């Protein structure tokens, strides 16, 4: 058996991810439960429930996003292949995506009405991507990202 395409099976990644998150929850004393599954060979999702979901979702889901990043660092390094992690709690991702759609459209309307660039609050790359995608359909505005790191944000320009 000298298969090299998938050095680590998706079952073992699910197990490792579940073990890592469960230990983190126990050591941190969090009231959380987690279920992990493989969406496809490279995409793994984790869904959290329990009283501390509010703690995960505070400040634009800072803790949820942090766990997603750190798990990617730790599990991704050992899996030796490109991993995509999708962490969620209380349907946050879907609700946030709807919110971002509305924010993008509202901001574009303002940019057009006042013929002035409109700058949104700083967002993660995943969230900025949603804004860019939504407004790529609109030929009357142009979007760009400015700033560095945590401060990077989308600016919407009227065309």
């Amino acid at each position, binding site marked *: 058996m000298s298969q090299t395409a998938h050095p680590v099976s998706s079952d073992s990644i699910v197990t490792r991810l579940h073990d890592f998150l469960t*230990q983190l929850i126990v050591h941190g004393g969090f009231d959380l439960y987690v279920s992990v599954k493989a969406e496809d060979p490279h995409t793994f999702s984790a869904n959290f429930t329990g009283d501390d979901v509010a703690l995960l979702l505070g400040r634009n889901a800072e803790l949820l996003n942090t766990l997603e990043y750190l798990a990617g*660092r730790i599990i991704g390094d050992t899996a030796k292949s490109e991993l995509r992690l999708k962490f969620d709690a209380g349907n946050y991702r879907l609700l946030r995506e709807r919110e971002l759609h509305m924010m993008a459209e509202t901001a574009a309307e303002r940019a057009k009405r006042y013929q002035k660039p409109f700058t949104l609050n700083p967002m993660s790359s995943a969230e900025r991507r949603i804004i860019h995608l939504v407004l790529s359909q609109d030929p009357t505005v142009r979007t760009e990202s400015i700033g560095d790191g945590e401060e990077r944000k989308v600016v919407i320009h009227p065309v």
Partner: protein
Amino acid sequence: MSNLTHLVEFLAKSLVDAPDEVHVRHYHSGDTIEFELHVAQPDIGKIIGRQGRTARALRTILSAAASKHRKRCTLELAE
């Protein structure tokens, strides 16, 4: 707060190549607990991460856990 020490230890050991050389000390100063994380010299970059992102992730998780005990905490990396 020994469980918070275990949390820092667990996260650090998950990140480094030399888990046996991970040591965590903590000091109390008022409402704040100061954690001092020691790792092997070659592992320091793994704890800090690109643009300090990993160190910031550790602080976010630690602060969230500490907030459940109504405590504040700091995390310093020491050689």
